[in-house]
């Protein structure tokens, strides 16, 4: 028991590794495999051709069967390596397959057909990434539209969020006026009202305002975030009032003080909120699903969801689409990892 406790508490470092260190690394490596492995597996699978995807057991890397052009045959023929019988060790091309027998030819001597039992041969494979899965998304499906819907909603909602939340935070941190503290508390209280419990009435309000089937129906209800107001207010409280006073001496208007002085100084907090907002809007699912009924207005997560319902056999496109959906988030995370984790640890929200 004591040893277990040492494993969990010790913050030793220098010196030799003892078994608690080994156990820690083992845990972390296994954990990392479990966390990242499935994502890597998804990305690798998305590059497989439909025939590669139904291969069982699956291969790690995307592969395809090698095909060669043989004189007198119009189309390239698939290559096999013969494992048993007279021709063992040879690499032959398949002309046709009848029952359990295949008619094959040697690509170097295509005149003499050779009959081989089909279980006496293995496919000759080579690495091949099926980029078509991605290319076809744009041509065969309305993928560009979904991508655009997601990008539009995420960008516009984030910009409006930054504007409205920072205006509110400015007043709540730099002004004294009757009702200021109740307003702040009221905004914080909305943290306790999860969107799931006001789903039905919000749908009514969106319908009355003509926001259903409309990207603005996803944007407006979500732009006033209590988290954002709180984050920005706390940050703006640390900005010295002298700066504002100096600007007032120069006859700057309050609006100008807000956007010329306070906003530029609040960049770090605005950046954290921008990252949060992009993540929230890009990944949002339930509310868009309720408010966006027609498929033309779908965002990427909605399109993915309806795809997986309809096209269970077309995993190659579904996988490619999933990867496209996770790439922006992954890139942002890779670049801004430290800011994101610090922001979340300090705000206690996600």
């Amino acid at each position, binding site marked *: 028991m004591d040893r277990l*406790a*040492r494993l*969990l*508490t*010790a913050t*030793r470092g220098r010196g030799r590794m003892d078994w608690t260190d080994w156990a*820690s690394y083992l845990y*972390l490596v296994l*954990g*990392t495999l479990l*966390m990242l492995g*499935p*994502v890597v*597996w*998804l990305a690798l*699978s998305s590059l497989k051709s439909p025939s590669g995807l139904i291969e069982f*057991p*699956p291969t790690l890397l995307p592969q395809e069967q090698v095909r060669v052009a043989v004189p007198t045959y119009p189309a390239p023929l698939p290559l096999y390596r013969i494992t048993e019988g007279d021709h063992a060790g040879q690499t032959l091309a398949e002309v046709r397959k009848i029952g359990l027998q295949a008619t094959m030819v040697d690509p170097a001597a295509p005149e003499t057909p050779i009959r081989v039992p089909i279980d006496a041969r293995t496919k000759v494979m080579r690495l091949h990434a099926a980029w078509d899965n991605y290319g076809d998304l744009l041509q065969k499906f309305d993928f560009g539209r979904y991508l655009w819907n997601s990008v539009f909603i995420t960008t516009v909602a984030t910009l409006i969020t930054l504007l*409205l939340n920072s*205006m*509110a935070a400015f*007043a*709540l941190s730099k*002004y*004294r006026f009757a009702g200021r503290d109740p*307003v702040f508390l009221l905004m914080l209280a*909305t943290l*306790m*009202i*999860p969107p*799931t*419990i*006001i*789903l*039905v*009435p919000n*749908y009514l*309000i969106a319908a009355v305002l003509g926001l259903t089937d409309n990207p603005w129906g996803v944007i*407006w209800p979500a732009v*006033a975030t209590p988290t954002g107001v709180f984050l920005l207010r706390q940050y703006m409280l640390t900005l010295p009032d002298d700066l504002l006073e100096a600007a007032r001496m120069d006859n700057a208007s*309050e*609006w100008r003080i807000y*956007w010329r002085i306070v906003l530029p100084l609040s960049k770090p907090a605005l950046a954290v909120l921008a990252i949060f907002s992009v993540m929230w809007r890009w*990944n949002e699912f*339930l509310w868009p699903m309720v408010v966006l009924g027609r498929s033309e207005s779908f965002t990427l*997560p909605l399109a993915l*969801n309806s795809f997986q319902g309809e096209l269970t056999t077309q*995993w190659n496109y579904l996988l490619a689409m*999933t990867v496209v959906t*996770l790439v922006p988030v992954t890139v942002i*995370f890779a670049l801004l*990892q*430290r800011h*994101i*984790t610090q922001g*979340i*640890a*300090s705000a*206690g929200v*996600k």
Partner: protein
Amino acid sequence: MIGTIASQAAGRLYAAVMNLPERPMRWAQGHLPDGRLGWLFVGPNLAIFAVFTFLPIIVDFYYAGTGGTNLLPTERPWVGLENFASLLACKDYFEPNSCVRDQFWYAIWNTVKFVALQVALMLAFSLVTALVLNRKIIGRGFFRAAFFYPVLLSPVVVALIWKWVLQRDGVLNAAFVGAGLQPVEWLLSARSAFGWTVFVSIWAHMGFYTLILLAGLQAIPADIYEAAAMDAAPPLRVFRRITLPLLMPSVLVVLVLGLIRAVQIFDEVYVLTGGGPGSATTYLVEFIYNTGFSAQVRQYGLAAAASLLLAGVLLVLTLIQLRGMRAKGSSRG
């Protein structure tokens, strides 16, 4: 070169847009009595809250008291507490089949099971991970990022990643066959589908809670540990007497946040299992969604009534959280 031109252009655009309200705001500044200007800044944000958060709560109560399938409140007949009564009408609450709204009670009991298992396991794993990450580890930033990464993924993406792993010809079954076992239809049996919804939701969210606990661990002053080392206190006692008590406020935050989120589980599960097989993984929010939006007959009143019952549970959890946060604040002095 291109970068500077772009940033200059962005700066001009920013200035041009932000200059637009200058005249009206200056006018308002001159004409409003002192101190009222603050309302102009707070106003837009507050208006959005009013329309999309406060108003809906009131409408929610009205909906819960009306029946029919019409969306417009004026067209809905008042039925009083009938929606609540039908949700709560049960011969035996532990036997959903004996209830008028059996789906609701399946959802309730599924959610209770899910929350108990998911929160307990997630807390345990987050705590162990945070403790391990708090050690002097080479590549700590990388490991922390790896555990955190799934938190950022869209729930739909999370569900599809695991659906792909778990499908009949998937990589997990390949490993099973490789080990000489039979392949399993993971999402087609009630027990294993339930288990996987628990697993996948832990996979997707534990990084967030690990981060909170890690921040809590790093806030424990090092000199306390040094003093314990001077006294040659055994590690188990150090853990029980120092680490655990000082980490308790963070554990409480994680526990309550985890509970609040787990009660509202929907997105991942909806895509992963669709609530099935049968209703084995239908949880409370999915019941609300199905009742109000995906069923042929859209029973908004019933959905609203179920939402309010859910809101009651969440309110209790939030009050516990507030008490816990007060305790946390006072323990920090």
